[in-house]
């Protein structure tokens, strides 16, 4: 028997004698392969988690334990060495690869990457999801030479996850800063942020290390409208940094132009710590029925179901509810959702049936609650879109790839690999399962092209505006001058708003000009009237569709902003929305899209309209600063918004807010109330708060 032709499912059922004989043959084949195969041979590596899984289930394999550890050590998966039965040499090897502060044993490729970084080189690491990339960042922070570190992450959910982990591990030595309002008080500091947050920080100073997670997002071809800002932010950070470390999954190469300012080592490895079984269901005739069957199977739990869009996720959830499927008990959370978001949201019924949903329109605190409950195995099935795949860590045993598109486009091999990589988790599910409902995309090499490493003459305008003069060729300087003329703003202003895109700026310039000529009511100061808001929203929606902000029209956008401002609580706002909503039931959650837009993009638009309006009407008093400050925090106290990013729903926190509260005072009070059984919170709320604010 060889590794290649082993049927592991059948093997696990064999009688003791045959089982042992076969496992011995597998060990023989593995030891042979070690000598001849590449060091990251996926089939050979997968043997380790498969054997670990088998040995945990079949006690008769006790005598194989020392040989298993010798195999784990030999392939470099030192984290699988069983210290209680390993030989002294293998135990020493495992101990030496253990970072005491982390209490974790690294594997060979992790160590190799760390080694490169410790020697002062820049590194771009491409490794599978289950490689254990994030832990390398923590391992680096134990190195005394990294005192000022910036970490760029794509989502707020990841920011929060990192913040929690880093504060727990390094809170004693490092200041961990995530918000503009926070300033460093110690010499050692970690700046955590998305590209949008970090690009506008002015207290970065000289950095010892810049970490960019999910670095493939630098590639503008991946249709991510934040990629240019990411390039610009990373450009700015690297200009201040002694060293950098980029990490991401399944990339085959990074293209650089000849004159690129930055040099780095590229390490691409297929080293994985878990094994995956693929179950091919593409020829199944009724896929709906089959999916409904599979999600009911406990042996598949916890299971992620991947679908193409938020609408599809909502639809699938309501289908499951209609079928009468009940997978767990989410009654308390479901009731809370109906109370706090209004009763029309169908998702609350799905939650009652034990199904979670994760996509871009789910409120942040609720999404993070779903992930937590899913990882704790309290919600057995989570229906998700690519939002989850790209930015949240989950511990799923199974991944069911039910759709074959993302927003109507077939997903590519890279995305497929990343979805598939979500199955299995080190230490929890040694062997994951992937259910394929469709033909997977053909294998193709994925190369990342980043303007950052490319020829500036080919780079988009939005990136070039951020470049230092020393990096600019005469051709590019001329292009910048032309652009400035078209946009009609100073270079620093273009830089500040480049995230909207140069064409959007040009469009807003024209729209504001037209509005001024039409005497629209856009010249206001302080608190705008509804008409002021409506006029300003009309200008904005001439350039960018209202749907982008989660609304049907400019008037509706103005109404939403106005109602948000008037509502004393977020709960009141949600109830107003739920009661007045008349659209498609599956789209009711577009209100969350509006709220997300209010946090970042809408204020940017308002600010640009203000700029052009001032240029057009220099004699008028014009000041949007109040709304620019209040819209991002939904006209609430800043502390509520910050806690929301940490997973505390505003509908709970706003009940306990007092005058003069800071994040710390409010957070401490919430936690105290949550730990007190006699408090004004329900049991479900208490647990939620205790999980979100662990200390």
């Amino acid at each position: 028997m060889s590794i290649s032709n082993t049927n592991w499912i059948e093997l696990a059922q064999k009688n003791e004698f045959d089982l042992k004989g076969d496992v011995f043959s597998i060990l023989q084949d593995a030891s042979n392969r070690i000598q001849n195969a590449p060091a990251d041979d996926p089939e050979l590596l997968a043997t380790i988690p498969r054997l670990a899984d088998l040995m945990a289930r079949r006690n008769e394999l006790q005598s194989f334990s020392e040989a298993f550890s010798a195999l784990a050590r030999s392939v470099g998966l030192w984290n699988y060495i069983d210290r209680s039965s390993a030989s002294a040499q293998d135990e020493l090897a495992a101990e030496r690869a253990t970072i005491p502060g982390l209490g974790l044993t690294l594997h060979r490729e992790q160590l190799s990457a760390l080694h490169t970084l410790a020697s002062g080189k820049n590194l771009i690491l491409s490794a599978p999801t289950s490689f254990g990339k994030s832990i390398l960042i923590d391992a680096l922070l134990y190195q005394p030479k990294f005192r000022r570190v910036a970490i760029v992450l794509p989502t707020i959910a990841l920011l929060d996850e990192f913040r929690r982990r880093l504060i727990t591990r390094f809170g004693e030595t490092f200041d961990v800063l995530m918000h503009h309002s926070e300033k460093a008080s110690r010499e050692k500091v970690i700046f955590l942020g998305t590209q949008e947050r970090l690009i506008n920080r002015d207290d970065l100073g000289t950095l010892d290390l810049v970490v960019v997670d999910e670095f493939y997002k630098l590639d503008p071809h991946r249709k991510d409208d934040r990629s240019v800002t990411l390039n610009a932010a990373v450009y700015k950070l690297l200009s201040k940094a002694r060293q950098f470390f980029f990490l991401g999954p399944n990339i085959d190469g990074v293209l650089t132009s000849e004159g690129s300012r930055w040099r780095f080592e590229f390490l691409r490895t297929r080293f994985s710590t878990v094994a995956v079984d693929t179950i091919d269901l593409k020829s199944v005739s009724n896929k709906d029925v089959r999916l409904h069957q599979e999600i009911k199977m406990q042996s598949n739990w916890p299971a992620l179901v991947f679908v193409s869009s938020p609408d599809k996720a909502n639809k699938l959830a309501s289908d499951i509810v209609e079928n009468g499927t009940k997978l767990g008990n989410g009654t308390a959370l479901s009731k809370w959702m109906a109370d706090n978001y209004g009763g029309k949201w169908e998702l609350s019924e799905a939650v009652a049936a034990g199904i979670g949903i994760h996509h871009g329109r789910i409120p942040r605190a609720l999404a993070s609650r779903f992930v937590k409950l899913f990882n704790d195995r309290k919600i057995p099935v989570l229906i998700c879109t690519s939002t989850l795949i790209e930015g949240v860590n989950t511990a799923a045993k199974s991944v069911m790839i039910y759709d074959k598109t993302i927003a109507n486009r077939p997903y590519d091999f890279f995305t497929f690999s990343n979805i598939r990589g979500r199955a299995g988790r080190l230490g929890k599910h040694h062997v994951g399962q992937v259910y394929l409902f469709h033909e997977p995309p053909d294998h193709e090499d994925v190369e990342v092209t980043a303007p950052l490493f490319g020829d500036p003459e080919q780079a988009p305008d939005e990136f070039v505006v951020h470049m230092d003069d020393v990096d600019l060729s005469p051709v590019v300087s001329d292009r910048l001058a032309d652009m400035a003329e078209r946009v009609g703003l100073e270079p620093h202003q273009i830089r500040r708003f480049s995230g909207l895109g140069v064409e959007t700026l040009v469009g807003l310039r024209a729209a504001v000009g037209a509005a001024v000529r039409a005497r629209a009511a856009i010249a206001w100061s302080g608190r705008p009237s509804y008409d002021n808001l409506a006029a300003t929203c009309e200008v904005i929606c001439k350039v960018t569709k209202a749907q982008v902000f989660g609304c049907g029209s400019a008037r509706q956008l103005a109404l939403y902003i106005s109602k948000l401002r008037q509502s004393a609580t977020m709960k009141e706002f949600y109830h107003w929305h739920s009661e007045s909503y008349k659209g498609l039931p599956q789209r009711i959650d577009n209100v969350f899209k509006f709220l997300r837009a209010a946090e970042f993009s809408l204020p940017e638009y308002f600010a640009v309209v203000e700029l052009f309006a001032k240029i057009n009407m220099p004699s008028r008093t014009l000041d949007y600063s109040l709304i620019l400050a209040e819209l991002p925090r939904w006209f609430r106290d800043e502390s509520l918004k910050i806690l929301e990013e940490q997973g505390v729903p505003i509908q709970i926190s706003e009940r306990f807010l007092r005058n003069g509260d800071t994040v710390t005072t409010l957070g401490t009070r919430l936690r105290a109330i949550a730990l007190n059984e006699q408090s004004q919170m329900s049991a479900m709320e208490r647990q939620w708060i205790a999980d979100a604010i662990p200390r």
Partner: protein
Amino acid sequence: MSIYDQKPQRFLKRLHRKIENPHTRLYCAGFELGEWRCKQFAFHLAEWLPDYALPEEELRFDHGNVLVKLNQAAVRVYTSTKYASRGEAGEIALHAICRDFFKTIPLSPRVFYKSASNDVVKAFDMVHARFPSDGSVQIWLGESKLFKSGASAIADAIKSIKLHIDEGFLSNQKLLLGPQIPKSTPRYDEIMQLFSRQESLDTLIKNAVFVVGILCDSKAVSAAKEHGQSYFEAAIGELEAIETKLSASGLPTKLKLVLAYIPLASKKEFVSSFDNRLKGLQ
């Protein structure tokens, strides 16, 4: 210079008669100020720890400050509450003798075989390669015994080897499990040939040398204060007694055997010196 040439300085002294059996030697730690060098021997063995525990590829990572040094790892392993001495001192001593006096290079696999009940049994911890002047390639398989009594040690060694050879290694399937042998290893192709599954066990046995290390209490050592003639006679006498037992087992007619005798003043003190040394390494 190959990484295999970097070794701790020689510490043990080889003693033998003028006309010796080339495969039977005595290695003595020597005396200092009238005392057998127990602590010094333990210190010396600790110096061999990286060479013993880590293959070349893993040694590469021993630079920089990413990781704790092997020594610190050893301290943590040996000071953990669950640690019980498994006779590593004996294994390291045999490793050091093969590397130092016989110029072997460590290949680091372990040898297992399948028993009649399909269980896995470990046969040899030490696997080295040696290139004698006749141009052949030898695989050295080590069996070390650290006992209070020399008679029990050799009896146990004979029993182990017989068991491995007769019941497992030869009649059932073998398994040589270890990290990838670097392509830069001298005579790489020939070594790989010997290890390959297709190669018959006969070929492996023909090229194998079984090294028996005996560490035990020695009257000769405890009676002596220096390397004098009387010590020499008494110690060589002990070696010959062990050798006689080995010959009587019949193994030498079937297999190539090397006997290394390392007499100790006291096994107990030696083990505790070694443990203390490891615990004290920082």
